[in-house]
């Protein structure tokens, strides 16, 4: 009997016993669906982390001179205290690096704090105030929706002008234009000159609740003591140039801090690598845990299918006897039942893939987790599903194939 015939027969049997088949493919269904969904999440978050997250937080080919790393998961208290004892980054540090670097770069100052921004009697609380220099918008890739960013001249002269995040503009001005209006930031009046385009959110954190003002404008006193900044941002043209600029900056800073060769840096040159390393750790956990879940459900699925097939062989002993008496060889019977278990598992896997893709779409819609279906996981899902069917079918099918036709025919 050709395999196609066996498969057609298998599908017929499945359709004739819908309920039983439905239950029997549940295990494989769950296994494959969870494989696809989990893989999609890992895949999506991975892409997100490496592409968007790192860029949003740091910028492309950008490093930041800081007292301590920006992204600091699982840091012991002792390390934290050591960081707090470090000298802070000064305006003069930033200026020295700007002058000392031989690599073409663009740079920006950055200091941050949470403030309340108000317009008339409207207030926007917990807004991130960033006191930055003019190239900040370029480095962070913030495009201006309406109005304009502030200029270098405005920065140096400390002109009280503000560029609002989209959420702040909406909160304070609804649909009216904020350009030219005067808002109060920490009690200081600022003239709104621009609004940044919608940034969305990152892992559920809104990215539009901010306001950017010139680093030397009056609000600098709200974020840091005089002459101090949180970070000095340096963006190079390429990764190679960024690394070269980093080592130059490191040398300049060590000289300024009078560090002896054996002393560690008491500052950091922070890049997106830290975040990515942290994410790589998480994704390693996912990569070890997900296969575990998948394997467990596939094994359960396999056992269920094997049981169903053993039941089917027992129920259809007479049919097997009849088929043998009509000329079915052992391998024909073996094939028939293998095809049946494989069909059950493959149908389960197919539904599992559809459910997995559906789940991915739902996750994308309803949760901040970015997910995208990986084609490899679909292929793997089909292969594993069919594989489970074959493996689970071998024992029942070989039992069926070995049945003695006389005994089988006599079975009631």
């Amino acid at each position, binding site marked *: 009997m050709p395999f196609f015939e066996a498969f057609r027969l298998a599908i017929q049997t499945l359709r004739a016993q819908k309920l039983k088949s439905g239950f029997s493919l549940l295990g494989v269904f769950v296994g494959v669906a969870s494989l696809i969904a989990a893989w999609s999440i890992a895949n999506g978050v991975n892409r997100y982390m490496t592409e968007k997250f790192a860029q949003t937080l740091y910028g492309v080919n950008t490093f930041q001179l800081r007292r301590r790393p920006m992204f600091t998961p699982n840091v012991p208290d002792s390390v934290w205290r050591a960081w707090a004892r470090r000298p802070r980054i000064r305006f003069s540090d930033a200026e020295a690096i700007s002058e000392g670097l031989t690599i073409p770069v663009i740079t920006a100052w950055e200091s941050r704090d949470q403030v309340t921004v108000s317009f008339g009697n409207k207030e926007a609380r917990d807004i991130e105030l960033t006191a930055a220099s003019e190239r900040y918008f370029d480095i962070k890739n913030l495009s201006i929706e309406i109005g304009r960013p502030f200029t270098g001249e405005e920065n140096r002269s400390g002109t009280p002008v503000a560029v609002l995040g989209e959420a702040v503009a909406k909160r304070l001005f609804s649909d009216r234009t904020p350009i030219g209006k005067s808002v109060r930031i920490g009690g200081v009046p600022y003239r709104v000159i621009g609004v940044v385009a919608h940034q969305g959110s990152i892992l559920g954190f809104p990215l539009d609740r901010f306001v950017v003002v010139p680093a030397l404008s009056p609000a600098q006193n709200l974020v840091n003591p005089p002459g101090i900044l949180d970070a000095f941002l340096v963006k190079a043209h390429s990764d190679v140039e960024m690394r070269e600029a980093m080592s130059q900056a490191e040398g300049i800073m060590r000289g300024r801090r009078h560090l002896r060769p054996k002393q560690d840096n008491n500052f950091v040159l922070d890049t997106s690598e830290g975040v990515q390393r942290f994410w790589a750790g998480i994704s390693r956990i996912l990569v070890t845990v997900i296969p575990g879940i998948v394997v467990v459900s596939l094994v359960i699925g396999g056992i269920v299918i094997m049981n169903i097939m053993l039941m089917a062989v027992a129920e259809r002993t007479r049919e097997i006897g009849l088929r043998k008496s009509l000329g079915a060889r052992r391998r024909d019977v073996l094939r028939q039942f293998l095809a049946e278990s494989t069909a059950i598992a493959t149908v389960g896997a197919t539904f599992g893939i559809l459910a997995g893709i559906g789940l991915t779409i739902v996750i994308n819609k309803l949760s901040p987790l970015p997910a995208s279906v990986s084609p490899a996981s679909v292929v793997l899902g089909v292969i594993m599903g069919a594989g489970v069917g074959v493996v689970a079918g071998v024992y029942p099918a070989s039992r069926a194939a070995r049945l003695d*036709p006389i005994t089988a025919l006599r079975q009631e």
Partner: protein
Amino acid sequence: MSTVQLFRTGDTPLPDVIILTHKLTREYDMGSELVRALRGVSVQIQKNEYVAVMGPSGSGKSTLMNLIGCLDTPTSGEYWLNGQKVSDLADDELARIRNKEIGFVFQTFNLLPRADALHNVELPLIYAGLSARNRRERAAHALKRVGLGDRMDHKPNELSGGQRQRVAIARALVNEPSILLADEPTGNLDSTTSTEIMGVFGELHGQGQTVVMVTHEQDIAAHAERVITLRDGIVATDQARAA
């Protein structure tokens, strides 16, 4: 009827002899005791004979039936079917013989309940490796032969007992076997339907089909032209009847 060859070990049957058993024995090891179901059965059945095998239960007629049907292999002795020695063939070769040479008709019909008449009749052809179109044509032809040309798409539960047995007969005939082997073909039928089925057998025999039928009913055996009676694993009587 031609003369019966005196067969000795090492001989080959005459071309007209469809079935030849020589000193056929079959023993079952039941653990504590050895059951000798057949103790040396030698029979010859010619082409186009219509033979009934009779005997009380335990006489060995089912065992003989299974051996003739190539569902079982003998402990010793020879079995020749259509000029081929099948007594020492392996499993897969026996399956091929069953497929090509033997058409089974069972007491309980043994139709696949979920398949329609046409598909039931097609089954042997699937194992013969025929194409789907070829199969359907031949199955339809076989069903017409037993007078069920208009019931091809009916499932077994939509057919009467007699019709079911006709489907089974069509299935047995579809591969044009050397022998039609029927095991109590009327055992599950009322007397009217039994007569009807016997009529079908008679017709097929008339068309040249060799028929071997196991039964314990005298009036059914009466339809055959020769009756072999078994008792305690040996042939007790073997006589031709007036047809």
